[in-house]
């Protein structure tokens, strides 16, 4: 008998509540049933490149995280385990299983498993014991900290889940208490030794890549001779929730260009620092614009180059990032800027499992910049 694929997809996508001790049995039965029914040459493939743990806080947040899973596993098939910490739950664990499928040719489907485990925050060790039993061996395990606060703010949970993971992915966008959060997380990141199994990634770092690319090209010696070393002033303006991103961008520039931090100052919606470069003082400011979109809006650069002073403005222009040459010899430049959905960023990050020393250096300077603000 041939099954109705649309119905099957729907059925598998609907979570089924199961006894936590019988999750594997239930998944096995689910696959067996699907294989038996596929018929007519159709095949069902269980694809898995890694174990992906997703930490969320509360049911609503877990549901929001789950919305990203179908697109995510299409790019990076994985056994996904959503861990929802639910305040007020008793010491027991609740579990649901489902699968996400898609057609990859006329008949075959590709399916990835989705398990959700709910637990009381105080019962993390009970939950961790279940998760350990659910991890597929010989595959990398990553933890996506979906909850919008630094993992280090919940040390017990983070320690327990981080210990199972080779890759920690978090997102500094929208962090509350940015200064404390940046310091806390940056300290954790920089404390990792080169030989540590666990590496951390901030999605904000990945989002900065178009800006980094454009800055690298705008300040290239062939375009603006002497500008890289002769930077004197950088003013970054950003929209809501993007202070940590702008901060990280500054820290990247400073760490790449070998600046030494002098001091920092916090005034209302504006943060500023002074650095010492090989050619003098560099003043950097980050300012929030309340009415703007949640993104880095613009970067104003001033430098003393070998051809004299220069000024350029990098800013958004629709779906592009644009360099306005201002008083410089730079040509106008444009690169595409596509705001990537978070599942695309996660899938891309999962494919990069080695640590990123540039990020680590930038995080280190970001922490020092936080300290300098007092």
């Amino acid at each position, binding site marked *: 008998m041939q099954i109705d694929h649309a119905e099957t997809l729907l059925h598998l996508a609907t979570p089924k509540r199961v006894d936590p001790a019988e999750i594997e049995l239930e998944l096995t039965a689910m696959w067996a049933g699907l294989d038996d029914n596929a018929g007519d040459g159709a095949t069902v493939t269980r*694809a898995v490149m890694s174990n992906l743990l997703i930490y969320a806080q509360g049911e609503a947040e877990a549901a929001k995280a789950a919305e990203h899973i179908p697109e995510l596993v299409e790019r990076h098939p994985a056994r996904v385990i959503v861990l929802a910490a639910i305040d007020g739950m008793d010491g027991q664990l609740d579990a649901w299983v489902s699968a996400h499928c898609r057609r*990859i040719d006329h008949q075959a489907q590709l399916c990835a498993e989705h398990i959700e485990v709910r637990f009381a925050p105080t019962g993390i060790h009970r939950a961790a014991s279940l998760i350990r039993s659910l991890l597929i061996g010989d595959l990398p395990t990553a933890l996506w900290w979906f909850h919008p606060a630094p993992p280090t703010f919940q040390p017990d949970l983070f320690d327990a889940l981080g210990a199972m993971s080779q890759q920690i992915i978090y997102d500094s966008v929208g962090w509350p208490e940015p200064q404390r959060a940046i310091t806390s997380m940056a300290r954790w990141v920089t404390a990792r030794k080169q030989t540590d199994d666990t590496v951390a990634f901030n999605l904000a770092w990945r989002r900065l890549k178009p800006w*980094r690319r454009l800055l690298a090209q705008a300040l290239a010696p062939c375009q603006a001779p002497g500008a890289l070393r002769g930077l004197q002033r950088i003013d970054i303006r950003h929209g809501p929730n993007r202070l940590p991103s702008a901060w990280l961008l500054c820290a990247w520039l400073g760490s790449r260009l*070998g600046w030494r931090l002098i001091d920092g100052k916090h005034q209302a919606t504006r943060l500023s620092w002074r650095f010492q470069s090989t050619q003098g003082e560099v003043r950097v400011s980050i300012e929030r614009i309340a009415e703007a979109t949640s993104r880095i809006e613009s970067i104003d650069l001033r430098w003393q180059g070998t051809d004299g002073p220069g000024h350029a403005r990098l800013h958004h222009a629709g779906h592009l990032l644009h360099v306005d040459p201002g008083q410089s010899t730079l*040509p106008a430049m444009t690169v595409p800027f*596509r705001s990537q959905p978070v599942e695309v960023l996660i899938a891309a990050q999962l494919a990069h499992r080695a640590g990123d020393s*540039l990020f680590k250096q930038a995080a280190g300077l970001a922490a020092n910049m936080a300290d300098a603000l007092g």
Partner: protein
Amino acid sequence: MIDNDNPLLTGLGGDLIAQPCTIVIFGGAGDLSRRKLIPALYNLALDGVLPAQFAVVTHGRAALDDEALRDLARQGIGKYSRRPLEEEDWEPFVRRLYYQQGTFDDADSMAALKARLHGIEAEHGLSGSRLFYFAVPPDLITTCARAIAEAGLINDPALGDPWTRVVIEKPIGRDLASARAINDELQTHLAESQIYRIDHYLGKETVQNILVMRFGNAIFEPLWNGKHIDHVQITVAEAEGVGTRAGYYESAGALRDMVQNHILQLLSLVAMEPPWSMDPDVIRDARLDVLRALRPITPANMADNVVRAQYAGGFYQGNDVPGYRREDRVAADSTVETFVALRVFLDNWRWAGVPFYIRTGKAMPKRASEIAVQFKSVPHMLFNTDESHPLEPNVLALRIQPDEGLSLRIASKLPGPRVRIYPVKMDFRYGSTFGDQAPEAYERLLLDVMAGDATLFMRRDAVEASWAWIQPILDAWQGSKSRWLPEYPAGTWGPIEAERMIADHGRAWRVL
């Protein structure tokens, strides 16, 4: 641009940082440009890996202007791009796309191109680094090179930036002498480091994965030699007949069209020694060593090692297919081969005594390219002692296209009280494992040229080494008085002669 000059570049784009340049496509309104090159550039732009400054100037004889070319490009992307055209991405891309009408054998026309390039480069703040892509028929390659040289469009590589790089499509010549003549002419205008001879097979993910599989896994390389491997089969099968390419095919044939370039490149990746670094010339030296170790085909051993054939009328997926000689633009007495099978040996320590069986043809049952490494049988039979049903040996199959991936056939015990052995296949499929669409070969290769990485391109010595090995076969065929070739019905895996060639040594072609 190197990291020492610009520390901000570190970590952006891995090892491949495309440098600002103008891409000039000769034959810019043609099929290759519309189907492959412009869609590839569009996808690179979507990935954000093109430099902030670039322009694409297509050049051709057709009476088009920028807008008409942009329409053609839009249609090409709509039809052939792996990702759909999105208006917001198209708009910034298309503003960098230009058309210049002209012919490259006319000095005035080339002067006009030069002037246009200067204008476009000034508009986009480009320094004059240029990538010339010769998407033209093979007999026009040298004319193109001469034209850009005479127009003063080639920069001296010793001066560094701005650079000039030239991409040339295969085939480079139709025999050793013509290949040498083309290379000689190219090198009167260009340094070897400026010439990128493209073989799009080398840009395929699965082909690049051969090196990763061999040298990124500890389990294969110890077995990768004549002590453990019985033989290797390389198949490049095409389902279509010659179709609209009959004109070209009549002057080429399967040996020139597939073996001299794609298949010998695959062979060199499978058989090369481990390189000591990933430096382009180290890799290319290792590939060249394989070509130089090919045992020559001589008149004395040709009958045992070479089979050529032509497809006769037959069926493909239930539809009639005419025989080759009945195709449009094919001579009724053509002796051009549409199929060739070869038994090849490499005279070196690693591969002593290991045959490499190669076959390629048109009008075969399906489109499939595969490299299959068949290991030797177990030395002592403990199971299935019935000699009429020996254990199937292990086979590692690397599927190049379609359904890219690899599989390993191993013997396994069937469940039950008796020891019964059954061959099972451990299968890895790119599509089902990695999900996301892989980039097209041309995307990777264009990016490589813009970044100045020649690893995946053919050097002159390799092109000529492969022609030198092919030449005795071509000479023998040329001297043959035969008016008929062996035939195989369209829609089958080749002629009986190819079956016999491999069966004489106790082996069989794989059914793909």
